[in-house]
């Protein structure tokens, strides 16, 4: 297991079917992006989970600070009117 310690971490995103978005499924260690794709294929698509893979260096992901959750997310809590649930949908509209 000494090798993987030196390999950077990559986050793996899989698209389950054409038309769907890529979803985060986990991470792998790899020496570079190509190897990360192969590792992702071998680790996360063994049971036909996907048709497309994205890999991103974990260090390239900028994450929000959990300590700032209050100011980032709390203000939305009392603004339910932002949900589009205050409209009557006409009968004729089938797909919304």
């Amino acid at each position: 297991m000494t090798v993987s310690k030196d390999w950077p971490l990559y986050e793996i995103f899989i698209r389950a079917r054409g038309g769907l978005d890529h979803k985060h499924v986990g991470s792998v260690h790899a020496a570079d992006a190509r190897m990360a794709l192969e590792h992702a294929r071998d680790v996360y698509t063994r049971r036909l989970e996907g048709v497309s893979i994205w890999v991103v260096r974990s260090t390239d992901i900028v994450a929000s600070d959990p300590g700032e959750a209050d100011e980032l997310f709390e203000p939305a809590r009392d603004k339910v009117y932002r949900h589009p649930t205050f409209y009557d949908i006409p009968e004729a509209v089938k797909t919304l």
Partner: protein
Amino acid sequence: MSSTLESAAPATVAARFDYLLQLADTSLILGQRLGELVGHAPAIEEDLGLANTALDLIGQARLLLAYAGEIEGRGRTEDHLAFLREQHEYRNPALVEQPNGDFGHTIVRQVLIDAYQLELHDQLQNSSDLRLAAIAAKALKETRYHLRYSGSWLIRLGDGTEESHARVQQSLDQLWPFTRELFDEQDAERALAEAGVVPALADVERHWSGRIDGLLREATLQRPASTPYHWFGRRGVHTEHLGYLLADMQFLQRTYPGATW
């Protein structure tokens, strides 16, 4: 062709049975070898990668052995053929029974055989035997990935550090002589090739050689010179390593005949 087995001449049946065993045993024995690495690869991701390849190979062996059993017509199933034959009845080239060695050694063995299977499966897709063609077409997709995996590792290790370069070059020198029997065409096989059932080995060798040269160049490795070679696993003459592998693989069926799970 595939639907007229019953009317085929006995010599043809024997040749086709033997050829199917060669294909099947190559995948079966290599799959068993790779299976030994489960839990021992240098990283968990490689562990899964090698295990995936092993499972692909064993899956190919099952399809081929089941078909071989039908062609033989003596009621032997894929399990009979996989687990209850004697060493000299296995028809895999001796290359695939060679021990795993270090990771680089495993990769070199894998590249040499992946490139071989790639050409074989590619050409077998056009076999006049439609069932064999279908098996080859399925296996080809798997084999493309196998070579992508092993080839990229060969390049990383060959064109890597001084240490990794020296070690894979040494493995290449050691395993290279075993590639000779891959292209040793026997009379029965030549007859099958002429009938359009299997590819001519000279063609397979030309493509294999070109592909291997390309990979070795990129990996900054030297192609070893040809040397005399004594083992012909495809004719049942194996190295001592196969016996140990079979003892391991056949243990359960030999000890508990007919055991299932």
